[in-house]
């Protein structure tokens, strides 16, 4: 039980994934939501690395490099959108941006 296997990594990744999704769904502040997205991507990376180790295959590591890259790019664009939002509405609360509905 104590002996750490890929299953443990998987469990941790599930946990981070769930927490991340919870954050995206539940939080109002866009900055926190962006951070939660990073949590989700980290959980993916954990998976990839764990499987990579399990399978003795480098692809997982390579893949996670790209994941990190994409995470960075998305963070940049996300923060850009955030700034635009802030300029328009003087707030970072998502609930204010709900004019489009129905």
């Amino acid at each position, binding site marked *: 039980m104590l002996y750490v296997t890929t299953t443990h990594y998987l469990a941790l990744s599930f946990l981070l994934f769930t927490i991340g999704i919870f954050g995206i769904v539940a939080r109002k502040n*866009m900055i926190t939501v962006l951070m939660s997205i990073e949590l989700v*991507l980290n959980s993916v990376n954990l998976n990839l690395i764990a499987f990579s180790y399990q399978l003795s295959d480098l*692809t997982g590591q390579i893949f996670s490099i790209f994941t990190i890259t994409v995470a960075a790019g*998305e963070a940049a664009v996300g923060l850009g*959108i*955030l700034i*635009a939002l802030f300029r*328009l509405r003087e707030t970072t609360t998502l609930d204010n*941006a709900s004019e489009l509905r129905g």
Partner: protein
Amino acid sequence: MLPNPQEYLLLAPEILLASAGLLLLLAGAIGRGMGNRESALVSVVSLALTAGVLLRVHSVVPGRLLILNGSFVLDGFSFFWKLLVLTATALTILISIRFLDEGNYRASEYYSLLLLATSGMLFMASGYTLLTIWIGLETMALSSYILAGYFKRERRSNEAALKYFILGALSSGILLYGISLLYGATGTVQLAELSEGLRAAQDNPLVPLGWLLLAAGLFFKIAAVPFHIWTPDVYVGAPTPVTAYLAVASKAASFAILLRIFYEGLGSLKVEWQMIVALVSAATMIWGNIAALTQENVKRMLAYSSIAHAGYVLIGVLAVSQIGLWSVIYYLLAYTFITLGAFGTVILLERREYAGETAADYAGLARRSPFLAAMMLLFMIALTGIPPTGGFVGKFYLFAAAVQAGWSWVAVIGVVTSAISLYYYFRIVLNMYLRDSGQTTPVPLRAPALVGAIAFCALATLILGVVPEPFIEFAKSSLLPLP
């Protein structure tokens, strides 16, 4: 293993397009920058060049060719989608010109982003590992987020970008998580190997979870229920040409990878995903059509309609047959022209004297601009699936595929909902032809590129409906191997 450098030559179309995007960006940054029309011209020309190079590349490639260590495939299937995407982008650019004129935003970045997004789509169409496909997808998605928020001083545009971004990132996370699980189960992300690996890993519980999460991510991109939830808001909020681009090019590219992954990567799970796709397809057709019934905003109505059409196309996907594949191809081809045409008409009516967004704005259009009304009528007829339009032939093939494959119940839902769709499509027609507005001033057809694009779309819609045979022949050469 180092790839043979000559293989990079085969990437010429993609490289060309990406370089064009970059050049455009640079040109826009130098001095006062390039104007709207010039940028659009350059973009269209580069798209045409890309298409030309693409033709050349495919003429030298025999049948199906895997290059770059199995991460990139050149086949008829990718060829079709690339051409489709290039065409859609070109038309999008044509309908953007006037819109940008009025929006007062820098044009060169806009076109540059469109081109770069399109290059992402080209990679999607040809990608043969999940990694390549995904990174192509992200390329497309990231540009789309930016494009949706491009009119950043407009509250709605910003809101659309924000929603699109957050939900897109979440879905991307889900998709990626699925990929990671599949990787865990098989140790590969290359589709052919994945297919092999899955056959070996029948009982691995990672597999179903993996492909389901992957499917969820793909469904998000094609806006299938319940992952469609972003669509209406984003479509309404985004600048209209961008909406058209999302509804057409982005959706087409997403269908391309959906087919590629499901057929080539998950082929051994066919029986399992067929059922899920059937349910999603049914739900999508029902939800999309019914939700559209009470929409007053035309863009929102078209958004729901595009959701519904994704449901129709899924019918072709789940049939897993020759006719199913070509029906998907044919349908998306027709859908591209119809939808672009419809959005083009909306753009032409937008702003200034016409708001163009609520159905009531169309009242009496037949008197004010018989041309526009006739065009819109044609597009609405086509969307409903009434002959002699491409929409009908496409739907015909889709339902045929379903009936042949034994998915009659999905076909029944399809035909019934498409009959229901008449109600909301024809509400616009009703407003145009059957109602009178007080105004009688004619609508000026000022933007030649826009009008030309609309006319082209209309012509294509008709041709697809009357002489489908050449296009079917083309579609037939663009098939995937069946699982």
